[in-house]
């Protein structure tokens, strides 16, 4: 067993854990992130709408609203540093009835109180100018809302953290935490880790991680949201995210249509409390509801556009029947002074990741002085995407590296150079979905029919793994039982 000494142990490597890791890397601290899965993109951070929220949906005065406005305002600089694809599309919340209008007015007022800029109620003519195919009588227009790649944001934070000395340990599910002489000792599937601080960023499992430290006052209510993914052919139909007026009694923002930075469209998410943090199933009744709801706003949608379904799970603090949102809980407890618990980090957690991380740093400063890391480098570069380049730049890329001249994923025109860069990622992730999220291969309309066999082969070649050790996504999701026949 390993006995590794750290200043800070971060439990959970999602967008929040990675933001905390990256912000703490600005100081002279030895940091380890303990991630239970073979990749950091297995749960909530990857399974959402990919929206940078403006902040008008969260009650003014809450941490949620404050962090959201701050996270949105700071995003251009962050995206530049970390090379995260995003687009300031703005967003429409569509209304039809007098009741809707009242709710939209209330949302606008709340947003203005929270400091959200540029909110306006607009009429049907302006809706048609912004999104010609979208139906609606009037709408709340939020110009600062953006779409972003949740994969690249999470990876950007994590890879930048690694570059600045943070260690990520994969498949390190924490099974026990004890405190001996002011050291936390986390027992994991990958050995024991010791740290002076422990930061609980475990998302859906944050209540369990708190319980391991004797705190049983938190309860996470998993609330599933199902989505449809639409073909890129549907992309031009929807220039910006379009939401319905949210139902205050529901735990979500309603079924919306969102373009993705990769040119697809998402329909969803539904809103269903489930008694299980691991049940990512999609269901027939919800699929039918999603299709019907989307057709109300965008009647031109056709079933032939649907290429995939997925589900995400919100780690909610408000339970079934209660609805709405509880503010983020980010706290040190008297019984565990060097432990910080981040509980109920649901939507808009993606937008709030950096402000949340800064709050963690602030709470640590309350206990001890942190020395600055003079070598901190805030810049991370993503994989250069062949398909996004001009013809001249494409030619230059191929001249530089022949692997840019071999297209592996036909749907996305993603080259061997990009797939290899994804396989050689700084976190050492070698799952199929890990490669997919990093270079976007296997996401297109053929759903990997053309490229997956070659990508599996490339991973095996690059890593020297045995076929039976290659995983699809989660721990234990093996792809192969071995060779068909011995050579």
């Amino acid at each position, binding site marked *: 067993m390993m006995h590794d000494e750290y200043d800070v142990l971060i439990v959970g490597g999602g967008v929040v854990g990675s933001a905390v890791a990256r912000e703490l890397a600005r100081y002279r601290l030895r940091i380890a992130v303990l991630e239970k899965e073979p990749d950091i993109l297995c749960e909530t951070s990857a399974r959402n709408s990919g929206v940078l929220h403006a902040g008008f949906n969260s009650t003014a005065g809450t941490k949620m609203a404050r962090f959201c406005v701050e996270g949105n305002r700071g995003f251009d600089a962050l995206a530049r540093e970390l090379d995260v694809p995003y687009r300031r599309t703005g967003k429409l919340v569509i209304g039809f009835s007098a009741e809707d209008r009242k709710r939209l007015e209330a949302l606008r007022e709340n947003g203005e109180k929270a400091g959200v800029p540029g909110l306006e109620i607009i009429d049907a003519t302006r809706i048609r100018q912004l999104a010609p195919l979208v139906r609606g009588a009037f709408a709340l227009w939020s110009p600062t809302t953006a779409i972003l790649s949740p994969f690249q944001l999470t990876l950007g934070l994590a890879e930048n953290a690694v570059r600045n000395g943070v260690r990520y340990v994969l498949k390190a599910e924490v099974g026990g935490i004890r405190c001996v002489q002011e050291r936390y000792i986390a027992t994991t599937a990958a050995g024991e880790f010791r740290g002076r601080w422990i930061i609980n960023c475990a998302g859906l499992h944050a209540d369990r991680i708190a319980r391991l430290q004797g705190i049983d006052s938190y309860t996470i209510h998993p609330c599933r949201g199902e989505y449809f993914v639409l073909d890129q052919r549907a992309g031009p139909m929807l220039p910006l995210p379009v939401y319905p007026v949210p139902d205050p009694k529901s735990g979500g923002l309603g079924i919306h249509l969102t373009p993705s930075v990769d040119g697809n469209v998402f329909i969803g998410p539904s809103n269903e409390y489930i008694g299980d943090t*691991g049940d990512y199933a999609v269901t027939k009744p919800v699929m039918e509801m999603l299709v019907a709801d989307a057709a109300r706003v965008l009647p031109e949608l056709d079933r032939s556009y649907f290429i995939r379904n997925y589900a995400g799970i919100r780690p909610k603090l408000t339970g079934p029947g209660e609805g709405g949102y509880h503010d983020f809980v980010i706290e040190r407890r008297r019984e565990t002074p060097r432990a910080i618990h981040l509980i109920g980090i649901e939507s808009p957690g993606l937008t709030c990741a950096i402000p949340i991380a800064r709050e963690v740093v602030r709470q640590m400063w309350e206990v001890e002085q942190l020395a600055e890391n003079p070598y901190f480098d805030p810049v991370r570069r993503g994989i250069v995407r062949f398909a996004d380049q001009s013809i001249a730049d494409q*030619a230059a890329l191929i001249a530089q590296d022949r692997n840019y*001249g*071999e297209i592996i994923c036909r749907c996305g025109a993603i*080259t061997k150079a990009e797939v290899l860069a994804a396989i050689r990622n700084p976190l050492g992730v070698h799952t199929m979905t890990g490669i997919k999220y990093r270079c976007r291969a296997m996401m297109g309309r053929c759903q990997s029919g053309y490229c997956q066999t070659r990508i599996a082969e490339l991973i095996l070649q690059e890593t020297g793994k045995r*076929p039976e050790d290659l995983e*699809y996504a989660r721990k234990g999701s093996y792809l192969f*039982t071995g060779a*068909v026949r011995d050579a």
Partner: protein
Amino acid sequence: MKCAIEKKSVVIIGAGPAGLSAAIELHRQGVYDIIILEREQSAGGVLRQCIHDGFGLTRFGESLTGPEYAQRFLDEAAARGIEVLSGVTVTGITPDRIVTAVSPNGLLQFAARAIILAMGCRERTRGALSIPGERPAGVWTAGVAQTYINLKNLMIGRRVLILGSGDIGMIMARRLTIEGAKVLAVCEIQPYPAGLPRNVMQCLNDYDIPLLLQHTATDIRGRARLERVTVSRVDAQFRPIPGTEREFQCDTLILSVGLIPENELSRMAGVVLDPQTQGAVTDECFQTSVPGIFAAGNVLHVHDLVDFVSLEAEQLARSVAVYLRQGLPACEIAVSSGGDIGSLVPRRVSGTQDVPLCFRVKRPRDDLCVQAWQNGRLIAQRRIKRAVPAEMERIVLPAARIAEHGEISVVSVDA
């Protein structure tokens, strides 16, 4: 851009059976200035992974494996010195026939007098069907499973359920059984098999693999690797019947639920597609709605046997040769289908030559009579003892009976 545009009489996209057959026939017709662009590292298309036999019975009068069938064409193409560039992916075609491709040696561009689309087809996926459930590892389309097993020597599972009775699914049922896996059943939502009768016999019946007609998957479970699939009987509207659920404990689910012509490039060039075949709308010369762009093989309409792909591509090549020399006759007579006749190729004819029409029936029919009518006149008729959707059928329209004007409609009547 640095690369110069190279002129070619014909650029063929895809070195599968359609592309190779077309190239060889063009060469035979005296058209030598041609090039085939192939995205895979080696030519041959899907035949490379079809290691079972049964290919070539019509074309060569003998039973060959897929690689053997492909090799005959590769050898002839090589003997004729036909240029086949592999590892080259076409990324764009314009309506004025400029072809752009990506290769390790740089970007390539060709200005072609004619383009032949021979890109083949791809498989329908779980997403297109919206099958409910979790998303574990172990769910594959039949063609992907076939690639892993036959080309990559990677075994994909031990207990297998197959959804859809397409030909590749049935062939994989046999293949997996031979390699020691237990194939529990093949489920088909329709009341009849989707694939060829001979595959039902040779791949399922001969190996005691049950074929469950009017059954579909209604739930898929497994957090990491597939653990079980729930299968239900469906009613006449394909709705699962409550109470008929059966659970199969399995680690692998193979989908064989249809093939879709790969027309991304055709769309870029503005080629009009047929909603029934999902391939291009073509005339009797295999010309699409864009002049000088032709299509044949599975990119035009999904075939049952490769032999017919070759024969069709050869026919196309003869048209292209005429096109290059003297131009083609105007094809202004539309052909429509009705009754139990579903997809149909071609959709426009000239009336100057006999035209074989290829079609599929929408449901199995015994003693089917197919008739072609124009201006209230019966111009062709054919009786078929048993017609099934899995098999492509043909009827010839004799030029002598086609009037200069008037839509031709092909319909089914009871014999």
